[in-house]
């Protein structure tokens, strides 16, 4: 078995036992990136020398017994919207092309604290706005399972890098499905934690009330270990929750006896690909065999989730992105005669089409005369959606549904029709609106040989339940162990 086939925890154990050195693992990952990045473009920045230097230092600390995390020394990569001090953080945008943050995100500090070796920064949709990772100013990322297809988005680089065995795990962010949907398209495991459990300090904001950082990895166990390391109250993020965290990994029993899982029939109707539907429902059978009780129920909100999400997300984006003005940091256009022209030219030339579309949409729904009809209405619908989930969780421990209506589309198919692309987020956005934890787990390949993902959703702070069910499923199945050849098809 080669190093790249190990899970993050397996590699961590070998490092701890002295069977593999941190520099050795880091070298292997950098070699894999060198071999694959030209084809899949998962990375925007690769930190060759810096990662090797970090690896040497971390190895010393592990040998000295100073670092004891089960993930100590395991190399990873970070989405390029999370600040890394002195390392370019571009948000896949021209406007932040040379931005080197003068500080670390809390996430970055937590990764340093457990001895994670940061290999580089991952490609994504510009400002995390997109479902395909094609809106990156630095070129589209390609799906390692079929290079003519998208890896999903916006954490497409993260999912592709984990799937292509370029790192053992990755950190992404999820505003409307941006961890779960690419995890599904690339056949990896990804979880969006409960809103407020991972600090957003240093995450470049897209829609602050929905944004949440989370891991993409090979297994639910790896995700549990990563969440144990990165969750927690942070005084620098006023929305972070002061709740007990940790113990997710040690809490994975795999025992689902008596667990009640609801399947919302509204998520299995028109628009869902037949093969995806069949694979997700087959996953329910596996969970049943492990002791769960599975039942269908109605969740009659699905037609409202996409409009409510895009109104709220665009509104917050239009406000958050007003800070990019070419004055304090980032890129500035040339050829302006006054301050207004400086702003206009910098923003018009610095942002891509999808970002501009969402800024315009968000400005519209917040503008005088339209605020009540769109923005206020969407916040009311959000309350209705939250209420519908609350009622579901009175009866069920978890919900099971698809992650996306189809498997990965071809490059170029989605960008031509923005509304169609927005609609493909139907199964993921409600989880962000309600602030809930949701995991995407690989549940098979379709007839084109592309990965299908199943989504397990839990109540607020129900990460333990979500990951335990995902873990039980992965004890019974091998779909999470399939690997792409990067030429298409599984090995």
């Amino acid at each position, binding site marked *: 078995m080669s190093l790249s086939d190990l899970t993050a925890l397996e590699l961590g154990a070998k490092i701890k036992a002295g069977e593999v050195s941190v520099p050795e693992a880091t070298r292997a990952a950098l070699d894999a990136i060198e071999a694959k990045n030209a084809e899949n473009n998962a990375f925007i920045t690769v930190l060759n020398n810096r990662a090797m230097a970090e690896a040497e230092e971390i190895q010393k600390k592990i040998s000295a017994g100073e670092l004891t995390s089960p993930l100590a020394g395991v190399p990873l990569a970070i989405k390029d919207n999370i600040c890394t001090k002195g390392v370019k953080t571009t948000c896949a945008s021209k406007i932040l092309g040379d*931005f*080197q*943050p*003068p*500080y670390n995100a809390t996430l970055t500090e937590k990764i340093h604290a457990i001895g994670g070796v940061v290999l580089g920064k991952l490609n994504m949709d510009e400002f995390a706005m997109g479902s395909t990772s094609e809106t990156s100013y630095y070129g589209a990322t390609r799906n390692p399972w079929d290079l003519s297809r998208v890896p999903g988005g916006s954490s497409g680089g993260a999912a592709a890098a984990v799937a292509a065995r370029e790192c053992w795990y990755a950190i992404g962010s999820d505003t409307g499905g941006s961890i779960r949907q690419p995890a599904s398209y690339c056949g990896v495991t990804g979880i969006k934690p409960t*809103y*407020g459990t991972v600090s957003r300090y240093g995450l470049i904001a897209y829609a602050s*009330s929905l944004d949440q950082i989370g891991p993409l990895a090979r297994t639910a166990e790896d995700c549990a270990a990563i969440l144990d390391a990165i969750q927690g109250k942070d*005084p620098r993020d*006023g*929305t972070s*929750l002061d709740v007990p965290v940790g113990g997710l990994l040690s809490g994975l029993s795999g025992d689902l006896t008596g667990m009640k899982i609801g399947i919302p029939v509204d998520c299995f109707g028109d628009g869902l690909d037949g093969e995806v539907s069949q694979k997700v429902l087959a996953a329910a059978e596996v969970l049943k065999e492990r002791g769960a009780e599975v039942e269908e129920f109605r969740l009659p909100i699905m037609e*409202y989730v996409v*409009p409510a999400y*895009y*109104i709220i997300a665009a509104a917050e984006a*239009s406000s958050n992105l*007003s800070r990019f*003005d*070419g*004055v*304090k*940091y*980032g890129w*500035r256009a040339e050829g*302006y*005669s*006054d*301050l*207004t022209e*400086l*702003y206009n*030219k910098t*923003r018009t030339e610095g*942002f891509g*089409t999808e970002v*501009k*579309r969402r*800024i*315009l*949409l968000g*400005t*519209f729904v917040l*503008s005088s005369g339209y605020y009540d009809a*769109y923005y206020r*209405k*969407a*916040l*009311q*619908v*959000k*309350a*209705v959606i*939250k209420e519908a989930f609350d009622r579901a969780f009175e009866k069920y421990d978890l919900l099971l549904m698809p992650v996306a209506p189809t498997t990965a589309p071809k490059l170029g198919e989605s960008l031509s029709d*923005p*509304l169609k692309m927005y609609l493909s987020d139907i199964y993921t956005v409600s989880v962000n*609106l*309600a*602030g809930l934890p949701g995991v995407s787990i690989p549940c098979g390949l379709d007839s084109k040989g592309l990965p299908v993902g199943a989504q397990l959703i839990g109540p*607020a702070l129900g990460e333990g339940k979500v990951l335990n069910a995902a873990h039980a499923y992965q004890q019974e199945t091998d779909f999470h162990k399939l690997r792409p050849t990067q030429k298409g098809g599984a090995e």
Partner: protein
Amino acid sequence: MNITPELVDYVSILSRLKLEPEEKARMTGELEQIIGYMDILNQLDTTDIEPMSHTFPVKNVLREDEVVPSFPREALLAGAPVPDDEAYLVPKTVE
């Protein structure tokens, strides 16, 4: 909802964006389509429902009133497109 080029002009000014004619025409059509789709929310009766900004009722998050060092000025100016030794430079704004 009818989205006119004039409305797109107005929203562009508020957004500090200046669209080329071709891009404006495309955006006008796309926004009309997207916003038209959003009108589906009107099918849901939300009378008497309180708008929900945040899912969890976290309120009055305060920190201790302690003096901590500010960021070093050089570190912040180092990332500015056009700084001098102590400030961000922009075109003259007050005559």
